[in-house]
């Protein structure tokens, strides 16, 4: 059986079409986490915002994928239903077929906790500005969610909404990090020293 030249090209095309990404059947992270510790000097400082930012990014990819898939005529599988949103924040749904990972709300709560521990080190005027701006971000996401309810799947609205969620996490994380980095209080015990990222 000899191979014709077009078979080779057809084979190449078929290979290139195979999915490069395959999700493992179970979550492998716990096994990895067990062998991965924070490096010395960094213990006690977790930045859940980074995981949440990735969550938002993953959803962004799905949103792009989903809208591409929808255009191809294939229905989108519904994702997991989001938990009840944190009070005072906008609903985290994009409309039918799209949801944000519940881990997003958890990460946001963590970040708010983290920030509230540091907020007394911020000058009052900066703190007020920060709170006012977080309010602006919530108003923006609320406005866009409202529009999405009328026009689900609108790519512009989805992109802007994701950017707003990402920005909120980044603002919370950055405010904490900038404040922590300049926390110059001496500590009695060297091992307690807060080392900012």
């Amino acid at each position, binding site marked *: *059986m000899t*191979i014709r030249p077009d*078979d*080779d090209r*057809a*084979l*190449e*095309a*078929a*290979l*290139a*079409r*195979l*999915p*490069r*990404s*395959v*999700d*493992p*059947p*179970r979550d*492998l*992270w716990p*096994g*990895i*986490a067990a*062998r*991965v*510790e*924070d*490096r010395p*000097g*960094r213990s006690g*400082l*977790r*930045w*859940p*915002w*980074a*995981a*949440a*930012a*990735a*969550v938002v*990014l*993953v959803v962004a*990819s*799905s949103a*792009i*994928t*989903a809208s*591409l*898939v929808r255009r*191809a005529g*294939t229905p989108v*599988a519904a994702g997991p239903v989001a938990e009840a949103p944190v009070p005072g924040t906008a609903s985290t749904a994009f409309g039918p077929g799209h949801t944000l990972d519940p881990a997003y709300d958890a990460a946001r709560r963590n970040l708010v906790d983290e920030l509230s521990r540091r907020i007394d080190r911020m000058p009052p005027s900066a703190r007020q500005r920060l709170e006012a701006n977080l309010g602006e971000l919530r108003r923006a996401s609320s406005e866009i969610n409202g529009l999405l309810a009328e026009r689900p799947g609108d790519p512009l609205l989805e992109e802007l909404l994701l950017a707003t969620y990402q920005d909120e996490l980044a603002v919370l994380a950055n405010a904490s990090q900038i404040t922590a980095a300049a926390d110059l209080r001496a500590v009695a015990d060297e091992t307690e020293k807060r080392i900012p*990222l």
Partner: protein
Amino acid sequence: MPAGRETRAEVAVRAADDASEFERARRREEERPLVEAAIRGSAAAFEALYRLHVGHVYGLCLRMTAHPATAEDCTQETFVQAWRSLPSFGYRSAFGTWLHRIAVNAVLAHGRRRREATGADRPIDEVVADTLADPSLGEDAAVIDLEEAIRRLPPGARDVLVLTGIYGYSHEEAAAMLGLAVGTCKSQLHRARRLLGERLALEEEP
């Protein structure tokens, strides 16, 4: 060529893979702060990177090992090793490419360990795969599709085909990752294509 059997998930993944160069570059840029934080020691940032890349790593491991449980082990090994090697990452390549290099090492090391453990010259599944690959044995079980055909390739040929044909690495890159001479790599690829072509042509026979 067998076609049209893609599942919805595969369509979705392919669509994501087809994302323009700009999108890919944009995503790489968005993950740079995560890489920086992970290098500085943040396990949470590393977890985020894990979630972004695990599909590509597991996909590579699965196709190279043709064995889901082994692929899971190799995937975990890859990320653990990546964590340890982060300080030397250096941004000389894309983070995903770097992970792939570590993954290939993990797969090859796994193969070596198994040989050492069993004391055999070659692991059992390699022998079996080679046997199946011999067309002179007369294939009775129909090859299901391209993925199955790839799984049945002998490991050396499969490795090269997966890296070049599916993941788009050049001969030089694949040879470097596998520790082979470029010439050996090319001949393995030729062998893989020939075997696949024969196998898949068999399937199309009435």
